[in-house]
């Protein structure tokens, strides 16, 4: 039950840190790796604020032990913009369309939308609403979030190489 070394790829970099098996991935990212973009919202798998990309799939990082992600590739909100700081189309669209108010759900929302648009580059409004149904926002009523994701989808399909 002592600490074990966990190695994985996070936002393109190979990282290694020690953690107990009971350490949740969200705590590992935030406390061991200082990646505080993914938030802890409900801690019960409902709200999606802790959403990260794990081996090409959206998951809730409060529902996975860090040790289960041994050898995996993880992308957090910190890995979504270009290395030079240029915002991803989704981040730009959330800004343009006012897709946030308090901002607490935003990292999870954008990380989820990032994967959704790779699974379905041209989603209808209902595809988007269904696709983000695991992410709760208590401020916006979702209208501007949906508009932002629609705008980002348009921007990305007109420049397909920007999708990654």
């Amino acid at each position: 039950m002592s600490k074990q070394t966990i190695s994985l790829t996070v936002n393109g970099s190979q990282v290694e840190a020690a953690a107990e098996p009971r350490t949740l991935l969200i705590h590992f990212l935030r406390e061991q790796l200082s990646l505080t973009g993914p938030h802890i919202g409900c801690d019960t798998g409902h709200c999606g604020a802790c959403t990260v990309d794990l081996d090409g799939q959206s998951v809730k990082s409060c529902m996975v032990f860090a040790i289960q992600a041994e050898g995996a590739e993880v992308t957090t909100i910190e890995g979504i913009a270009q290395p030079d700081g240029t915002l991803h189309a989704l981040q730009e669209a959330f800004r343009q369309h006012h897709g946030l108010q308090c901002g607490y759900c935003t990292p999870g929302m954008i990380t989820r939308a990032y994967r959704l648009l790779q699974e379905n580059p041209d989603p209808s409004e209902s595809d988007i609403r269904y696709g983000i149904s695991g992410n709760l926002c208590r401020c916006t009523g979702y209208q501007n979030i949906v508009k932002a994701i629609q705008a980002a989808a348009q921007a990305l399909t007109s420049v397909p190489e920007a999708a990654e």
Partner: protein
Amino acid sequence: MIPASFDYHRPDSVAAAVALLSAHGDEARVVAGGHSLIPMMKLRMAVPEHLVDLRDIGELKGIEVEGRKVAIGAMTTQAEVIASEALADVCPILRETSLQIADPQIRNLGTLGGNVANGDPGNDMPALMQTLDARFRVTGPEGTREIAARDFYEAAFFTALAEDEILVSIHFTAPAAGHGYAYEKQKRKIGDYATAAAAVLLEMESGQCRHAVIGLTNLADTPLVATAAAEALIGSPVDGPAIAAAAAAAEAVTEPVSDGRGPSAFRTKVAGVMVRRAILRALDRAA
């Protein structure tokens, strides 16, 4: 919320996983997708000293469809069930049901095996597996045996699975080509368990119902097969009186608890509504 400490094991074969369960007895638990167990561990309602993660066991993965015979590995995720065209071709009710479970992130990790083996009355797959008359293949130290889905559930969280056995795969014969189907689930919000849900399979021939099965979710401490409700349809043209009789017969076998989803009597009524809607939709889809 932080779970209690445990030793983590990641075996790469069913035999190795069973050996771990045999060695550690009731101090060990297997984890599939983790979306039922990990919340219980956070609440310290489950305190395993040994966690046996099944994620690396390749033999637990995959969907095989041969003719109408279907075999699904226990570690197949809900997302994989949804994505399988071969499965949707012969038995589309699986995809329809999976799409009503939780949300996209949870379906990416949540497994069919975890959903059926956990024994939670709120899970959707147990009633569907009973409706399909599926068989569960389980492996323990003594070898492999099969348990019918209809014999598997004993009470809430109590199943016929022994402590040192692992659910390996799920097997069933898909209903005849042209069958009608529907899974209707009333829930308060995305991600919630059913207030009441009904699975209906229907086969029609010359305007008469030749075969029907109706299953019910979260309406007792085990899933239910509503035999009398199905019998009310068989031999009928599935018209108003037959549907009303089926819904009443289904309501009669429910014993839902009163909880945040509503008082027991309300949930029983919702069960009747779900059965009626599922029959109508299945009828519409039947060839």
